[in-house]
């Protein structure tokens, strides 16, 4: 077996090794956190649509994402209700309201969905119960998301407060999560929506849900619907609308940019830290490396030693970084009361490992020049 020079060199300077591991772990942690936020972002964009009970969605071409909508005529839903394969069409109204915390009396923007209580718009079972439907139909009654931020105040049924200067009563709760678009969410009946958002007319809707009969071909129905409707609506499958919203958040908002930037910066920080460590190691051992060259070792061997050191640092820093990240994911999910679901995926674990190895290898490649160009004749001095 060859003498594990890379390993022994790293192990020799224990303090330096610890600093290096801490540095790599820190960079790994930063990368994981940024990717975690990015992932949570796309997950929350996904979440709302995957909890809606429809295969095909209609919205205005000017709509950017769920909370930035442009309305379109409700007639579009009636036009396609008879299409072969369509079981039901459902209108959804959305808007923001100033919700007053009943305890502190501070107001804050709350996201509101208006639905027909009899329509199974959401797959949430707590909204399908007859008593829930009855409660929603009562005037000035709202259902509140349990995952709303605590700043919105208590969520107990029966509490009365103000929403845009109208007295409302909490009639029940559900669990949905608002993601990046909203800190708190309400669901109200279309009639109550009309009251809260007057003078908005109910014949202009923000989102049209098309529920298909079991076994219907989504693409075929979508094509027919597309053909029947004018260009003032976009027809999207569930997968497409999720993709559009995700692209909006990640591609065209500062939110997505910040986290992508965060990943890039963490990568650079990690590269610099590892470079510093490797460069110092090489500088300290330059006479020895030059001696190896004089003895007849080729540059390739020294190249391999430096790259091995880089990969060892990558793996040793990655493991604590991963463990810390799992802890912080848990912490973040709890701190946002589940509003930002930070979940580790196998793909991300592998991706960050590869990123870490390439980060260290890159530093290795930058610092290796010094040892490869080391002149063996210089050891005679």
């Amino acid at each position: 077996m060859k003498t594990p020079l890379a390993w022994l060199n790293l192990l020799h300077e224990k303090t330096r090794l610890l600093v290096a591991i801490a540095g790599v772990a820190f960079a790994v942690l930063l990368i994981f956190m940024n990717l975690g936020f990015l992932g949570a972002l796309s997950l929350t964009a996904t979440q709302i649509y995957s909890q809606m009970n429809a295969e095909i969605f209609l919205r205005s071409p000017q709509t950017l994402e769920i909370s930035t909508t442009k309305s379109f005529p409700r007639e579009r839903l009636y036009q396609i209700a008879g299409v072969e394969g369509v079981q039901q069409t459902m209108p959804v109204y959305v808007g923001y309201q100033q919700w007053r915390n009943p305890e502190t009396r501070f107001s804050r923007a709350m996201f509101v969905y208006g639905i027909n209580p009899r329509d199974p718009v959401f797959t949430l079972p707590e909204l399908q119960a007859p008593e829930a439907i009855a409660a929603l139909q009562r005037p000035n009654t709202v259902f509140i998301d349990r995952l709303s931020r605590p700043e919105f105040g208590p969520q107990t049924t029966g509490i009365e407060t103000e929403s845009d200067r109208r007295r409302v009563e909490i009639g029940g709760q559900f669990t949905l999560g608002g993601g990046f678009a909203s800190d708190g969410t309400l669901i109200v009946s279309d009639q109550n929506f009309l009251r809260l958002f007057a003078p908005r007319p109910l014949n202009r809707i923000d989102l049209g849900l098309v529920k298909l009969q079991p076994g219907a071909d989504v693409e075929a129905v979508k094509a027919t619907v597309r053909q029947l409707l004018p260009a003032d609506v976009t027809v999207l499958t569930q997968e497409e609308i999720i993709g559009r919203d995700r692209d909006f958040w990640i591609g065209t908002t500062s939110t997505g940019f910040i986290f992508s930037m965060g990943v890039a910066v963490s990568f650079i920080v990690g590269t610099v830290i590892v470079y510093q460590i490797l460069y110092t190691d090489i500088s300290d051992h330059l006479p020895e490396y030059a001696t190896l060259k004089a003895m007849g070792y080729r540059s390739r061997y020294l190249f391999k030693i430096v790259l091995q050191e880089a990969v060892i640092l990558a793996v040793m820093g990655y493991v604590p970084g991963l463990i810390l990240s799992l802890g912080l994911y848990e912490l973040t999910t709890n701190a946002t009361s589940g509003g930002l679901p930070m979940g580790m995926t196998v793909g991300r674990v592998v991706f960050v490992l590869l990123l870490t190895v390439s980060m260290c290898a890159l530093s290795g490649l930058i610092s290796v020049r010094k040892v490869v160009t080391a002149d063996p004749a210089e050891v005679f001095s």
Partner: protein
Amino acid sequence: MMDANPTPHNNHAAANSNAGVAIAQSTPAVETHGLNYYFGQGDLRKQVLFDLNLTFPRGQIAIITGPSGSGKTTFLSLIGALRTIHDGSLKVMGRELVGMNNAQLVEVRRGIGFIFQAHNLFESLTAVQNVEMAVELLGGFGSKRAQAIAMLEQLGLGHRVTYKPNSLSGGQKQRVAIARALVNQPQLILADEPTAALDKESGRDVVTLMQTLAKEQSCTILMVTHDNRILDVADRIINLVDGRLESDTSMRDFVTAHDPKTLDPRMFML
């Protein structure tokens, strides 16, 4: 000195045979003809070695002396295949180094034992691991531990094999470096001030060890040194001044010439 015997030499035979037989080897260990060497390029080009014609037969211990800047270390690094050479002829163990590319030079280096003024041992490796680094070059992975320990024992370091350089004295470190240079039984050893960092006694020990091992393995030693205390181990002393050969004397002549009794009285007529 220049034997015309056409028998090709064989490294392994020489390494494994005893001293008497190996001296009969035909090819000189090192042979130079009209060797010139320059540092720098263009206007800054400066010649440091001028027309050196020297032959070192096998088994000889030669000391190269000279004031600093005389080019003796450069000469040693050329013989050690550490620089590319363009002018003249330099044969090491029968192989012409002039015009060789880098990869070929590396091959030549593997047959040479180097000892430096600084021991240049890896602090992270134990004594025996440092020596093993040399054995691995030639691929002896199975026997490397045994070879390295045997070599260290020969140098009187049998009880220090698992020590790291930090816990060894200066003389011991230099002996580990010598073990590293000798473990592959090279036919040629190049030493650059091997005693400079040592006190008188360890310096003496190190040189005597080199001498004994050289005789046993019948290898050639070229040593650059300023240390007058160790001149007596040499068979031959070469003096370089400003890159030119100033004198080339056998040990006996050197002693006679420097004996105060035989000094030319004219030296004192000023």
